[in-house]
């Protein structure tokens, strides 16, 4: 069982934690990587040796206290070691998103004044070299994978192994090297900057969030205690290293509780690797859970009728009683028995093929997850939870405690986190994890973090009766109907988008009399439906105009209304009228951002006639729009778009009562 971490508090930096881990868990696995066909594994003692050697090597190259060292690449042990090696020297690691284009990368490297970069492979080296003219601060680049780099000019380029070997030699040749390293580790304190993480943000240039050891180590400790993570746990590191979540889960928490981090072989083999490792602690954004569920359903479509029937029957059993059993609520004996059979025939095998058999704690965050999807996983007996976090908070703001899991909240304040909601509805928090500041951006720091340590999240939300926080929207997007009713477009849109048939939704209502919506159907889902029901259609546009499709979506919208009616704060913002757009919202047409977020302003302008029609009572509206084809040509399509009225629930009664 879990060995109690005896020396809590004494180790306030990661290099110190590494020493501790090597001492008490020296022979236990610290990190694995699927490489050359097997899970190459390093123990904590080995990891410490690797890191010290590399740190000494870096020191030999000139890395000194206060330097910034950029880290670019996918999740690999050597890059994780680099974080600690850099920290050992009192320098600051700056992980970057490896899929960023060269220009974006250059901005961050310049802004962070990185003198060194440790990168994964030729691809990253090429990116940096292509812009080396603009990178006057960058001195040395160290690479992990030497493939294709043999013939490069090596005056400023070094293989990781060579740097490490030089360090090893230096450590052997001269005891002073080791002593200096020890001294540097010992001198570091909790208030030093541990890491700098650049957040992209929705607007403007990326900002460098400076997190101290006090932020990260304490957050790691609190969260490990919250979920009772121990050195027996196992995690798969597959999300970008530059993202705060990965930094906390795959680095900070691992160093704190001593659990083992596994790095996949490549992105192609990720699912296979997940299956092999079978992590006990797992994080994935809702998108991944969604795709996973979709593939499960698609793959089951190919199964024989009996098996498919059995599968869906037991999924029904799970929906009925799975979550209750997980939450320890009373369930009839018959259902318990059925659930037991279901476990044998469906749930456990399914978890096994998904690689989630051993998952003890799982989190999803970042976006709202569809309640159906969330419940699906929960009902299989998976302890999937939601959390709400930010880079500026060292992740944790709220989290769902075991046994208090709800699909539509993000949980209670995490340990030692204070939360308040200001008058405009914006969520603010104060915690040990609150960041030190934005690097070289005092102004932004001041506008985000108050004098007394409260951080503005930029999100609007409220606490429900059970003390759970619900995030409804970006604070700046929250508006009001003319009668003052709260209008949170994204909250409504998300509810709409949870229906597989709805791909995109735009809710309109700020400063209007009531709420309306423009919807995009999901071509795959609706097309599938059409095929199954022998409905023929020639084009996307034709599909959107079908009566049955309109009826189907009207039913979805009505359901959302019913849902909204049950929540007092947003009950007033039910959708009265909607239309189905005749074309897909597209980033190429400027309607979405490249990260697939809706650009409200642009859309409002472009579809002005439609919006007018939504509010003037007409039942049809002609529109002509410009589109960009895949090959870049532009064209125009026109359509008569129908406008549909939807059932609302208790809305008029409310209004009458209000008047």
């Amino acid at each position, binding site marked *: 069982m879990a060995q109690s971490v005896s020396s809590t508090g004494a180790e306030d930096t990661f290099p110190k934690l590494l020493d501790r881990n090597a001492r008490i868990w020296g022979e236990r696995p610290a990190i694995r990587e699927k*490489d*050359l*066909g*097997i899970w190459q594994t390093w123990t904590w003692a080995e990891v410490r040796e690797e890191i010290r050697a590399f740190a000494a090597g870096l020191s030999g190259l000139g890395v000194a206290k206060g330097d910034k060292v950029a880290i670019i690449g996918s999740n690999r042990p050597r890059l994780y070691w680099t974080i600690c090696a850099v920290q050992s020297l009192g320098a600051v690691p700056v992980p970057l998103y490896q899929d960023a284009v060269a220009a974006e990368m250059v901005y961050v490297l310049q802004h962070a004044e990185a003198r060194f970069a440790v990168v994964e492979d030729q691809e990253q080296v090429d990116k940096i070299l292509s812009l080396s003219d603009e990178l006057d601060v960058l001195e040395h680049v160290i690479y992990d994978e030497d*493939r*294709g780099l*043999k*013939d490069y000019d090596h005056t400023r380029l070094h293989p990781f192994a060579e740097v490490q070997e030089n360090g090893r030699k230096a450590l052997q040749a001269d005891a002073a090297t080791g002593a200096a390293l020890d001294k540097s580790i010992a001198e570091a304190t909790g208030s030093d900057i541990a890491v700098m993480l650049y957040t992209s943000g929705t607007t403007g240039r990326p900002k460098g969030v400076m997190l101290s050891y006090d932020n990260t180590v304490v957050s790691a400790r609190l969260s490990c205690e919250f979920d009772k993570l121990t050195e027996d746990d196992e995690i798969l590191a597959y999300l970008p290293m530059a993202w705060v979540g990965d930094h906390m889960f795959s680095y900070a928490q691992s160093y704190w509780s001593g659990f083992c981090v596994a790095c996949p*072989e*490549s992105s*192609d*083999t990720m699912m*296979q690797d997940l299956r092999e490792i079978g992590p006990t602690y797992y994080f994935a954004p809702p998108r991944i859970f969604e795709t996973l569920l979709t593939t499960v359903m698609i793959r089951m479509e190919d199964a024989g009728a009996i098996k498919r029937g059995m599968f869906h029957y037991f999924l029904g059993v799970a929906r009925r009683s799975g979550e209750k059993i997980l939450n320890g609520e009373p369930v009839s004996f018959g259902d318990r028995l059925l659930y037991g059979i279901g476990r044998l025939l469906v749930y456990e095998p399914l978890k096994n093929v998904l690689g989630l058999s051993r998952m003890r704690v799982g989190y999803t965050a970042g976006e709202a997850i569809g309640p159906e999807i969330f419940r699906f996983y929960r009902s299989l007996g998976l302890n999937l939870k939601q959390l709400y976090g930010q880079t500026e908070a060292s992740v944790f703001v709220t989290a769902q405690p075991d046994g208090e899991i709800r699909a539509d909240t993000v949980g209670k304040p995490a340990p030692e986190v204070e939360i308040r909601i200001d008058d405009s509805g914006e969520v603010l928090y104060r915690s040990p994890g609150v960041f030190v500041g934005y690097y070289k951006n005092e102004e932004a720091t001041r506008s985000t973090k108050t004098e007394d340590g409260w951080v503005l999240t930029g999100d609007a939300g409220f606490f429900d009766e059970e003390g759970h926080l619900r995030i409804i929207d970006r604070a700046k997007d929250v508006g009001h109907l003319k009668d003052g009713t709260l209008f949170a477009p994204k909250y409504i849109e998300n509810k709409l988008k949870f229906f597989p048939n709805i791909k995109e939704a735009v809710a309109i209502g700020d400063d209007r009399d009531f709420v309306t919506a423009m919807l995009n159907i999901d071509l795959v889902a609706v097309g599938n439906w059409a095929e199954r029901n022998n409905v023929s259609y020639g084009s996307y546009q034709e599909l959107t105009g079908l009566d049955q499709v309109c009826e189907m979506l009207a039913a979805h919208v009505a359901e959302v209304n019913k849902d909204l009616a049950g929540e007092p704060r947003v009950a007033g913002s039910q959708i009265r009228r909607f239309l189905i757009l005749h074309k897909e919202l597209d980033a190429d047409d400027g309607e979405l951002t490249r990260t697939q977020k809706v650009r409200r302003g642009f859309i409002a302008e472009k579809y002005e006639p439609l919006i007018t029609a939504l509010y003037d009572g007409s039942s049809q509206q002609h529109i002509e729009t410009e589109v960009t084809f895949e090959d870049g040509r532009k064209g125009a399509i026109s359509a008569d778009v129908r406008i549909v009225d939807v059932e609302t629930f208790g809305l008029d009664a409310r209004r009458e009562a209000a008047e």
Partner: protein
Amino acid sequence: MRAPEQEAGAGETLLAVDNITLSFGGVRAIRNVSLDIRKGEIRAIIGPNGAGKTSMLNVINGFYHPQEGLISFRGAERRRMKPYEAASQGIARTFQNVALFRGMTTLDNIMAGRTLKMHRNFFWQLVHWGPAAREEVENRRKVEEIIDFLEIQAIRKTPVGRLPYGLQKRVELARALAMEPDLLLLDEPMAGMNLEEKEDMSRFILDVNQQLGTTIALIEHDISVVMDLSDRVVVLDHGEKIADGLPAEVQANQNVIEAYLGVSH
């Protein structure tokens, strides 16, 4: 792609074929052909169908025995030999029609390429323990490096029969590389591939040549590929050599143009 003057002229001769004539019961497949392959180069053999290209490879790795002419490898004159002797001297090859061991997985196929590197005797094999197990593991590691090199991790344990054609060709290359050859003979490595697969394969061939330093002789139909890839090109037609030289020279050669346009002789 690569500057020809860098390689041309440089490097000692690895294999020399001197005035070879090969015939099958009166039909002459190769007539008085001489060619040399220099250490470290990529040497292309091109020509229309039935020009004797594959026969030439078969002669080089000892599968056919020419009636006339000399072959010398690494400076030593070679007498009549068995194909497996050529293999043990460091000549590996791939085949025009994929010749994988269809009953085995990708991994086993590449392990098969290590046959000559494994020596533990029957009785060690019986117990599969100690030195035999160690040898197996050492060679597995080597094979894994090749798998990594050719980026076929995802199909490691897939029976090769189930793989798409392009991947089969890559596995075959992997198997040849597992032999750690000095001379690698590739018989139409890109036949039947789509553009993307061809690009991948070209990159791998260049990587093999540059990173592992392996000398390569290849037969290819796609002239643009040959021109990009190879250091020197020899052109055969009806069993005779009609041109030999740098890609650019060969491309401009009137005989070659005629042979490819099908002008009768």
